[in-house]
């Protein structure tokens, strides 16, 4: 795989998102909003004296695990279908890029933005929660082992699963709106359903880790299925029909 082509593809996609003010500022707003909501909801629990209650705090940070998948539903679901609708796909497919390099470029752009934004959100949440609770508790509440697993393992893996699933599903869609709708109404709820048992389990570290491994395996399976489905001929002739 020629990574310089993949990197250039990602860079171009980033720049297109950056130039699209509506999408770009929505993306910036996403971690801020999620952190604000999580802080408001979890502050009372954090300040309570019960250690058991504080164990529930990790469920609030769980929402940030979904940021990469949400970002994918915003920008990843449309990236290929948009190229086709804008007629830029044909000249792109005429370059020496291979099908798997194109898939990797298209998948990695939204995935890396999503992971970056989730880390920004986790960091903001940790800093704000510690700043607000340190005076009362006398110790730093975050980061916990669980937060770190969520931040550096579960969020990227959930993002991968969401991205590959979204690209696979969007390949069957007729237009940009359909791709986004399916991504938001099918892929995200599916991920949420997969995640609910983990949250319900009381946010146990081991369960989170095992779930992460399960998601990783699922993501890899979907990756290989997606790469097989991601053939230039199929994209050129069938996609968007």
């Amino acid at each position, binding site marked *: 795989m020629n990574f*310089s082509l993949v990197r*250039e593809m990602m860079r171009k996609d980033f720049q297109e998102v950056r130039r699209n003010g509506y999408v770009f500022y929505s993306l910036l707003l996403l971690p801020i909003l999620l952190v604000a909501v999580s802080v408001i909801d979890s502050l009372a629990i954090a300040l309570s004296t019960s250690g058991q209650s504080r164990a529930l705090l990790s469920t609030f940070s769980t929402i940030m695990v979904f940021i990469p998948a949400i970002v994918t539903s915003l920008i990843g679901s449309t990236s290929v279908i948009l190229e086709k609708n804008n007629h830029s796909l044909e*000249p792109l497919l*005429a370059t*020496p890029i291979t099908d798997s390099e194109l898939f990797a470029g298209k998948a990695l752009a939204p995935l890396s933005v999503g992971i970056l934004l989730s880390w920004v959100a986790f960091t903001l949440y940790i800093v704000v929660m510690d700043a607000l609770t340190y005076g009362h508790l006398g110790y730093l509440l975050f980061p916990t082992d669980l937060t770190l697993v969520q931040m550096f393992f579960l969020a990227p893996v959930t993002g991968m699963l969401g991205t590959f699933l979204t690209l696979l599903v969007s390949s069957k869609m007729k237009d940009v709106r359909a791709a986004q709708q399916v991504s938001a109404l099918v892929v995200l709820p599916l991920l949420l359903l997969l995640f609910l048992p983990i949250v319900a389990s009381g946010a146990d570290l081991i369960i989170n880790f095992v779930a992460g491994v399960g998601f990783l395996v699922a993501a890899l399976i979907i990756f290989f299925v997606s790469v097989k489905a991601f053939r230039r001929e199929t994209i050129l002739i069938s996609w968007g029909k």
Partner: protein
Amino acid sequence: MIQVSGLTRVYGSTVGVEDLNFEVGDAEIFALLGPNGSGKTTTLRLMTGMISPTNGYVSVDGTRTDQLKLLPEIHRKIGILPEVPGHYENLSAYRNLQFYGRMYGMSDDAIESRTKDLMVEFELWDKRDSPVATFSKGMKQKLAILRTVMHDPKYVFLDEPLSGLDPESSKFVRDYMKSLKENGKTVILSTHDLDDADKLSDRVAVIRNRLLAIDSPSALKAQAFKRTVVFHIESIRGLDLKEIEAMAFVNSARISKDSLVMEVDSPEKNNPDITAYLVGKGFRIQFIGEIRRSLEDVYLSIVEKSKEGKL
């Protein structure tokens, strides 16, 4: 050289193209002509390896386009201009070209100098930092042509390259295509503009899901029509058309207003005899001309024959 051999592409139960056989030589301008839905785009896509054939093959300099592992190697040799320019409209013109330069593995220095040269030549340099969305249709088309030749490909595939261009830009692009040929590049052109194909092409292929005719425009004209001469006569009353038709070299004759219109074997050889006959009969000839058949006449004749099942 590009070799097309037994090329067939079927979409479900629909035949895109069937059993195409031709070659495109180096430094040649080759035009693909055909009605809408005749398989021109399918042929271009097959020739560039964008889609694979159901039967037959295309080889570019000896490498078959259905060998997917070798496709990047083929794609370095070819540039494709699709019918719709398809730019990244939010990005600048320069960034669009830079992106494609990098995708073709060009160094940033090479991209910079090539982009500047081309944009200056195409009078787009002053607009290099403007988003493509702000460009006129003609400017977008010019930029798309620059993108196509950015990596200096040996084979340039152009689908309707003059579409949307004003007459001045159109002439500029035509001249540019000729200069590509002079520099040893091969241009494969798909167009509806038969006048352009006539002026530009060394050879044309007329397709309607299969190859109907292939040759130089002048050879196709000669094959499709006998040469037609017109004698404008001061007063044509009293002319005996049967005597004219009886001449061995006259294939057909008719009177149109004050003109005698004849299909003859060779105007250079036959006009003096016709002139002598008419003068001898007392007719005063005002001037003699030849009806030039356009490629459009040839094309329409070929397509019509194909529809009637005569080809």
